């Protein structure tokens, strides 16, 4: 149990997917202009990564390993993730139009989000069990949500600041993201 808790906290803070592993930076920079949309993206990513961790573990363990086709995991996972996102989109569209319109374009965008594929591959390479994979996926996704919401909060504040002309827009955003990554380095020694 302690191991799972450590894995969970570690995946949020220490191995933060955006700020330590530098995966999923596209939505991190692209969808972080408002806290509201950032939260929407975070929720959608959490949902998809958790499900993808679960299903890709099953595909890997019960389809690829028996046939000794582990080397095909990248393409197999892309297949699984893409269809999963499509399926989730269909279901949400039918069952909860409110959630669907809130997530909007972000849902299909996750199909090509490298954070999802990245975490699934990390799960496999670290030889996690089913439970560990799901916990790691969920924690990582929460870490992603936290990072993107934090950045959105900072960006909303920056809006009203007096920034030198040359730093306006993306330059100041990249500097902010870089400083955040530096700050997260501070968690490195937390769990041995």
């Amino acid at each position, binding site marked *: 149990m302690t191991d799972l808790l450590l894995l969970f906290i570690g995946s949020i803070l220490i191995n933060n997917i955006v700020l330590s592993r530098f995966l999923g930076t596209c939505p991190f920079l692209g969808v972080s202009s408002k806290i509201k949309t950032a939260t929407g993206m975070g929720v959608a990513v959490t949902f998809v990564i958790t499900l993808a961790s679960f299903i890709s573990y099953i*595909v890997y363990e019960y*389809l*690829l390993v028996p*046939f000794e*086709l582990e080397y*095909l995991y990248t*393409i*197999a996972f892309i*297949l*699984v993730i893409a*269809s999963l996102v*499509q*399926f989730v989109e*269909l*279901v949400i*569209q*039918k*069952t909860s139009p409110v959630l669907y319109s809130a997530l909007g*374009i972000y849902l299909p965008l996750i199909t090509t989000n490298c954070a999802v594929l990245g975490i699934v591959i990390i799960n496999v390479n670290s030889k996690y069990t089913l439970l560990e994979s799901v916990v790691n996926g969920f924690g990582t996704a929460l870490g992603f949500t936290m990072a993107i919401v934090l950045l959105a909060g900072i960006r909303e504040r920056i809006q009203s600041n007096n920034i030198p*002309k*040359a730093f306006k827009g993306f330059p100041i955003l990249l500097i902010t993201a870089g400083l955040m990554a530096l700050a997260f380095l501070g968690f490195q020694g937390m769990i041995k």
Partner: protein
Amino acid sequence: MDITQIIIPTLLLGGIGLVLGLILGVAAKVFGIKVDEKITIVRDLLPGANCGACGYAGCDQLAKAIAEGKAPANACPVSSAASKEQIAQVMGVVADKTEKQVAFVKCNGTCEAAKDKYEYIGVKSCKQASLVPGGGQKSCGYGCLGFGDCVKACQFDAITIVDGIAVIDETKCTSCTQCVVACPKSIIEMVPASSSVRVRCNSLDAPKASKDNCSNACIGCKICIKQCPVDAITVENFLSHIDYSKCIQCGKCAEKCPTKCINIYE
């Protein structure tokens, strides 16, 4: 090499794909919600360039807004009159005829007319050059820098840089306003396509400075105001403005303009 090493992976991945495809197919049937037919029809009639000139995120969003009655049938500034009419028919309304607008570069400071203040060797982009002290290398601080940010912004190949300034091909211009947004000097303006007499200058400098900077500049002499029979011209901050709704395109102002900054377009 054993042939099964190829066949098994192919079958397995194909199988996974097939199963997932079937699941998605079934899910689309089970969970599918009926989309308003009008949305698909209107979407097909829109140009599909996703340029955003209508103010919506893309053609899909505009089609939805038109079908729901939130946007008028002629909300797309890019599509042709014929397709606007078809959209209006689908929606059962009469399309308002809107005057076609074209982008117009309010600068004639060619390499010949407007000299450079200094040699600029930075990134070849108007946006970058305009950040340099003096607002770019051109002697006139209001003029076209000619690095072609608008050319890159134009999805319809309507802009070229001729003799150091941007020139718009009005037959290709679809009035999507992307170039207006891209120009850091804000010298591109949307004007009615039918207007033929236009002021080709954007300088707000005092007459002497304008003249020193560029031989084609408007010096605010107000001769055009006196020529105009319908009071369509005003001069503000040493720059002449033509009110296109009043202009009868007689061309008298262009005739008398001492610097020829008022031009007649065919």
